[in-house]
């Protein structure tokens, strides 16, 4: 599908990326910033993993009955790696957020800046 000469998938990915970026920059709540970061990362994964698709292709499982063309296995493996990294980043960030909330009682960046 290419209504304006651009694939709809790319439009969706770019939109998701921008939404995530806006959340990350504009929101003052740390939890919402982290959610924005996750939305951005999801858009990158969607971009990479869809890039390996091929029209009418089978998944890259060379079992009986599968026939070429096959989707490229490399983006899928790389995204799997990326997801693990995102899980790690999210876990550390969340646990820092829990600490910040326990110490200061707020997650708003504006209020946190005024604390000693």
């Amino acid at each position, binding site marked *: 599908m*290419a209504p304006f*000469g*651009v*694939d709809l*998938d*790319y*439009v969706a990915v*770019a939109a998701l*990326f*921008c939404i995530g*970026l*806006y959340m990350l*920059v*504009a929101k*003052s709540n740390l939890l919402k910033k982290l959610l924005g970061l996750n939305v951005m990362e999801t858009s990158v994964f969607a971009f990479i993993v*869809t*890039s*390996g*698709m*091929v*029209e009418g*292709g089978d*998944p*890259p*499982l*060379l*079992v009986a009955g599968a026939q*070429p*063309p*096959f989707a*490229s*296995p*490399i*983006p*899928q*493996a*790389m995204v*799997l*790696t990326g*997801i*693990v*990294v995102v*899980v*790690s*980043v999210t*876990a*550390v960030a*969340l*646990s*820092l957020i*829990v*600490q910040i*909330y*326990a*110490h200061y009682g707020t997650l708003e960046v504006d209020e946190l800046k005024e604390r000693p």
Partner: protein
Amino acid sequence: MKGWALALVVVVAATLAIGVQGLPTHDAPEAPIHDHVGARYVERGVEETGMRNLVGAVLLNYRGFDTMVEVVVIFTALAAVLALPRAGSVADAPEALPVSPVVLFVVRLLAPFIALFAIALLFRGHVSPGGGFQAGALFGALFVALGLVLGRRGAARLVPERARPWLQAAAPLTFAAVAALGWALTGSFLGFPQAPELHAVREAMALALEVAIAVGGGVILGSLFQTMEA
């Protein structure tokens, strides 16, 4: 603040819109990603790695170093979370939130099926979608769900305390062991033997890695959740 953020997003969106113009048509078979090394993996992956699931072949064999460091990354994340000082002591936190009997029943009903699905993903991963990471994610979800209904003490009993550090470090340790074995057999670190008489060894090495990733990943995800909950 909001205005600047909006301006930044507009600039980034414009940049992306220009960049997207130069990308290959989506789903096109002639896209560059299907040439070069990707084509070779599809063509010779089964012969070279012995795995029919090429995603698994790329993960464990062609890009094995990547995966090895990746399991170290998630292990390091757990270490970092555990190293942070705890906000409140475990003793004064409530033992468990009151659980509705419906939730309790549904989790108890579903738990064996989730476990079965995870095991199927793990051991059928070489011929169907699945593999160590997918099974690990499901095991992690299972630990989280059981932790919610069983409370902290019940969840802690799921993984024996003495075995817990070893299970959390299972994936990096197994990678080190398999890499050393590969070194001894082939002369290259994390090498998989190609000789036909060593095919059983090659499959055993891949299976050991998958199992370690699933168990280690699941335990780490569960531990992350329980640490943060405390």
